[in-house]
């Protein structure tokens, strides 16, 4: 379409102010000239005549402006009224013509509504997570600050050590600073211990966020400073556990075996940062036995009015080097970093892989658009006669295009309304199947202006994508010819067939891409379920006890409890063997030394290993499959791992003796190649002592997700003995001659006896972790497969429609062929071949596009190349067969064509 045509269609004013000014100037100049000529004729000199003629105008330029202003008001109003008038007319016309074609209308609206519903429901999740305003006072000025030591990749935003805190307080960009500490505690409701999240807050916290108590009172400064045994409970706990009891204030709450007095209920929905249920005072000094260096707090800070985030970041960067004055070794290169918001909404826990989901949604909508475009082409052909009549009555082509676009707008608007309603039903239903406590408190799925804007934008896009090309094709015709043939034949229907094929090719290509994506995921899933992890994971019961959190300040106690469970299990019938395994936390202190405090979360050291004290041979980049485990003697036996050389742990590996390590076969190979590792030493970060290798054991594998997809390589694994090292969050593993369930039940019983306050994790077997990881892939696979299925269905409908339409358009031609003696078989083959030509074009384009796009899916794939030949083969087969059937069925109609009737058809 020409620029002019577009402008006319969109009703953009032709005259700019410059044009109007020139117009008026010319008009006035004419007057002056005429006046002057007359004055000259009366005997005035030329100069005087012009001067007099101009004088009579007064101020010419202001007069000009006055006239231009009048004209502009005119233009604007006129154009606007015209637009409204035409649009209303067009809409009325559209509704009338839709009523005449209910099948077409319903098909188009439902198809588009489906696409819009899918995309909108995905977007509403996206919207809720990424754009919802945080419901805190002055949330737009509150940032989070963290301290980064060493070169860790990720920054934990709940970690500024108490020693570093005064340096942060020096920063002048912030009006106010508040510290908090997250924790997990056991809470007794009746006899059932429950693990809850706690938040210890300082005096600045509640005022900064303007928090209020729904009941009772907010933690008061004197209670916080005096470290009183008081707590507030979340609104959720109050409602669910106390039945919204108005007399809850003053009741006792058992947190970690200690009684706290409930002083209030927090304002509804406040569970910062993540599902917090109990709020307590923050100790202002490190716990006994630990220093300000290893006591971390989270920091939120409020920017001074007018201070930008960039300025604050700069200031923190300037302050950072001063941290070295605390401890030049520990704080070397330490940085204070800032996050723009107090919460991290981008963290995967809220919405994994939003891009993939949104992308899939956009894709489905585009497929729906392509499908409806195909329908529109067919319709444009059928209406060629009507268009030609209107054109002959003097309608501009731009008017006809606008008419078609208005029809599209009417359709897509109807689809948008329907789609939005459907989207919210989808969201409501899917929320039903999701754990609602998996969402943060500020997460509200609701129709807001952003979603409505989104839907509006989508609708506009759909209108243009769907309408523009058929509108152009449908109004480009040879007037005389079209009118002569009665509007059913001629050029325009040919071009409509071509156009509808083009739409179908696009649609097919995109369906193929979705299908490839779905198939890759399914294949990945199939491969994942057949991974050999090196031990019979589903036959080993696993119990992860969260021991009485009062003990968590003492890793010795939790380790001893875990050992007690294993010891008691050994004397219990029904349990074959049991063992303890936990992540390495630290070496046991030699007797007499002061134990260190254990942080709530285990620290992971995954940096490097140094063999034989030779740093030049150190191996780094060990993550993510690098593991440091602390295990009991029976561990290898329980898992069925063979000691390949050397020995298992034993009595000789007592605390204070040289640290013994058993390493995996892969570790041995990585560190020493073909040399015998027994008796050699290795050093790992976080442990000062050299570890002496006493044994080499079979590899184990885990499914590990990463940037380049899932993998299950036998990683480097180092085991230390529970005799010499302490474990963070130990788990109990057990086998049973009877059944896994029996083994688990027995271990749970024993655990309850050892620690009545222990909360038992949900894991049942060693395969549980693995299954959780599979869940992500399964959800994705499910969504993509569903989308691919609908895309395939749409493709079938599309192919069928286009072939049927083509046959109908060529009825006469076919009739002639039959009359001239062509066999129906031959004609059938001719039509099918013709149809398959564009089907294979779409298939080809789709496959090529898939090859380039499927790489983006690698993150979800395990052991499947994005170019997996089986997947591509299957896609070609499925689409080929489907296309063949969808072509053949409508094409078969030609065999029933009676040449006599066909020739008379027009």
């Amino acid at each position, binding site marked *: 379409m020409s620029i002019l045509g577009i402008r006319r269609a969109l009703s953009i004013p032709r005259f700019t102010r410059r044009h109007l000014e020139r117009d008026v100037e010319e008009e*006035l100049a004419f007057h002056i000239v005429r006046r002057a000529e007359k004055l000259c004729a009366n005997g005035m000199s030329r100069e005087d005549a012009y001067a007099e003629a101009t004088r009579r105008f007064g101020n010419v330029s202001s007069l000009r402006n006055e006239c231009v202003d009048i004209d502009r008001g005119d233009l604007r109003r006129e154009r606007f009224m015209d637009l409204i008038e035409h649009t209303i007319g067009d809409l009325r016309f559209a509704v009338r013509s839709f009523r005449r074609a209910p099948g077409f209308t319903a098909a188009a609206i439902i198809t588009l509504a489906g696409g819009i519903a899918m995309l909108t429901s995905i977007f509403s999740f996206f919207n809720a997570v990424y754009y919802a305003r945080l419901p805190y006072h002055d949330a737009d000025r509150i940032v989070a600050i963290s301290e980064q030591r060493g070169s860790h990749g990720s920054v934990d935003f709940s970690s500024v050590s108490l020693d570093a805190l005064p340096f942060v307080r020096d920063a002048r960009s912030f009006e106010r600073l508040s510290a908090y500490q997250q924790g997990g505690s056991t809470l007794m409701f009746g006899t059932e211990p429950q693990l809850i999240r706690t938040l210890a807050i300082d005096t600045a916290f509640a005022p900064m966020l303007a928090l209020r108590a729904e009941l009772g009172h907010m933690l008061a400064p004197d209670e916080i400073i005096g470290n009183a045994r008081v707590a507030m409970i979340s609104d959720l706990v109050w409602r669910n556990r106390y039945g919204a009891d108005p007399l809850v204030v003053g009741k006792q709450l058992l947190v970690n075996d200690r009684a706290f007095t409930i002083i209030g209920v927090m304002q509804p929905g406040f569970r910062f940062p993540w599902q917090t249920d109990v709020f307590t005072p923050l100790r202002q000094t490190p716990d006994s036995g630990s220093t300000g260096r290893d006591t971390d707090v989270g920091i939120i800070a409020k920017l001074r009015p007018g201070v930008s985030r960039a300025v604050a970041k700069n200031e923190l960067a300037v302050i950072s080097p001063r941290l070295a004055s605390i401890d030049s070794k520990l704080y070397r290169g330490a940085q204070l970093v800032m996050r723009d918001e107090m919460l991290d909404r981008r963290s995967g826990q809220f919405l994994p892989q939003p891009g993939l989901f949104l992308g899939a949604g956009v894709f489905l909508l585009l497929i729906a658009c392509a499908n409806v475009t195909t329908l529109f082409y067919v319709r444009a052909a059928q209406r060629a006669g009507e268009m030609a009549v209107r054109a002959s009555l003097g309608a501009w082509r731009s008017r006809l295009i606008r008419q078609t676009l208005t029809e599209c707008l009417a359709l897509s608007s109807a689809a948008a309304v329907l789609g939005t309603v459907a989207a919210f039903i989808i969201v409501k239903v899917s929320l039903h199947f999701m754990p609602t406590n998996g969402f943060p408190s500020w997460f509200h799925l609701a129709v807001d202006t952003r979603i409505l804007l989104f839907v509006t934008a989508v609708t506009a896009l759909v209108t243009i994508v769907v309408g523009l090309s058929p509108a152009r094709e449908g109004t480009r015709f040879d007037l005389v010819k079209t009118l002569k043939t009665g509007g059913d034949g001629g050029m325009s229907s040919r071009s409509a067939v071509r156009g509808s094929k083009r739409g179908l090719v696009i649609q097919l290509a995109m369906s193929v891409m979705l299908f490839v994506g779905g198939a890759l995921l399914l294949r990945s899933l199939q491969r994942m379920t057949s991974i050999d992890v090196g031990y019979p994971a589903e036959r080993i019961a696993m119990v992860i006890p969260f021991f009485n959190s009062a003990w968590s300040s003492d890793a010795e106690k939790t380790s001893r409890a875990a050992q007690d469970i294993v010891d008691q299990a050994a004397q219990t019938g029904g349990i074959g063997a049991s063992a303890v395994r936990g992540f390495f936390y630290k070496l046991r202190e030699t007797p007499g030394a002061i134990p260190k405090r254990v942080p709530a979360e285990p620290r992971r050291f995954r940096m490097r290993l140094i063999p034989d004290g030779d740093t030049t041979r150190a191996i780094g980049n060990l993550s993510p499959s690098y593991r440091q485990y602390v295990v009991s003697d029976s561990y290898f036996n329980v898992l069925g791992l063979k000691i390949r050389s050397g020995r298992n742990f034993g009595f000789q590996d007592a605390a204070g003796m040289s640290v013994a390590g058993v390493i995996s076969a892969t570790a041995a190979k990585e560190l020493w190649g073909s040399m015998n590792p027994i008796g050699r030493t290795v050093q790992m970060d976080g442990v000062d002592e050299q570890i002496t290798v006493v044994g080499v054991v079979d590899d184990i594998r885990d499914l590990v997700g990463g940037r380049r997809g899932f993998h299950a390589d036998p990683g480097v694994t180092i085991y230390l003995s529970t005799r010499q090292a302490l474990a963070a969050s130990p788990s109990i593993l057990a086998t049973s001659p009877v059944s896994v369930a029996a083994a688990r039940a027995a271990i749970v019983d024993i655990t309850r006896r050892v620690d009545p306050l222990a909360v038992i994790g949900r894991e049942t077997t060693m395969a549980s972790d693995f299954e959780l990881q599979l869940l992500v892939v399964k959800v994705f696979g499910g969504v993509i497969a569903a989308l691919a299925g609908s895309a395939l269905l749409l493709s079938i409908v599309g192919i069928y429609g286009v072939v049927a339409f083509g046959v109908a358009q060529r009825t006469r031609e076919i009739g002639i062929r039959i009359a001239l003696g062509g066999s129906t078989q031959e004609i059938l083959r001719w039509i099918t071949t013709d149809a398959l030509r564009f089907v294979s074009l779409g298939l080809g384009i789709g496959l090529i596009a898939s090859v380039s796009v499927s790489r983006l899916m690698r993150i979800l794939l395990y052991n499947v190349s994005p170019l997996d030949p089986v997947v591509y083969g299957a896609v070609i087969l499925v689409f080929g067969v489907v296309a063949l059937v969808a072509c053949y069925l409508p094409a078969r109609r030609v065999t029933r064509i009676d040449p006599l009737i066909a020739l008379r058809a027009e």
Partner: protein
Amino acid sequence: MADTELSIFRESLDLLILKSLTLGPKHGYAVAEWIEHATKTVLLVDEGTLYPGLHRLARRRLIEAEWGLSENNRRAKYYAITQAGRAKLRTHAPIWHRYAEGIAGALRMTDPETA
């Protein structure tokens, strides 16, 4: 405008313009001349009010503008009266007659006291 000349109100100017165009399309200069001529040069039309008047009438669709060639072959903007313009003239001319006659009659009246 000089004191001796009568200033004409916008409303009456509109009517005069419409009236001038009933005799055929004219450009702005011709409209001004016609008015001066028709009012026996009692009314000298001020260009500063004539052109805004023309544009206002065009905006209200009482007249239409179109570019054309003048008698001596120059480009000029011609105005023509529309159906709406004729209707306006028909309804408003009598009102103006009554108004003008009323004022004139009142001013002609001899004051009994000074007579």
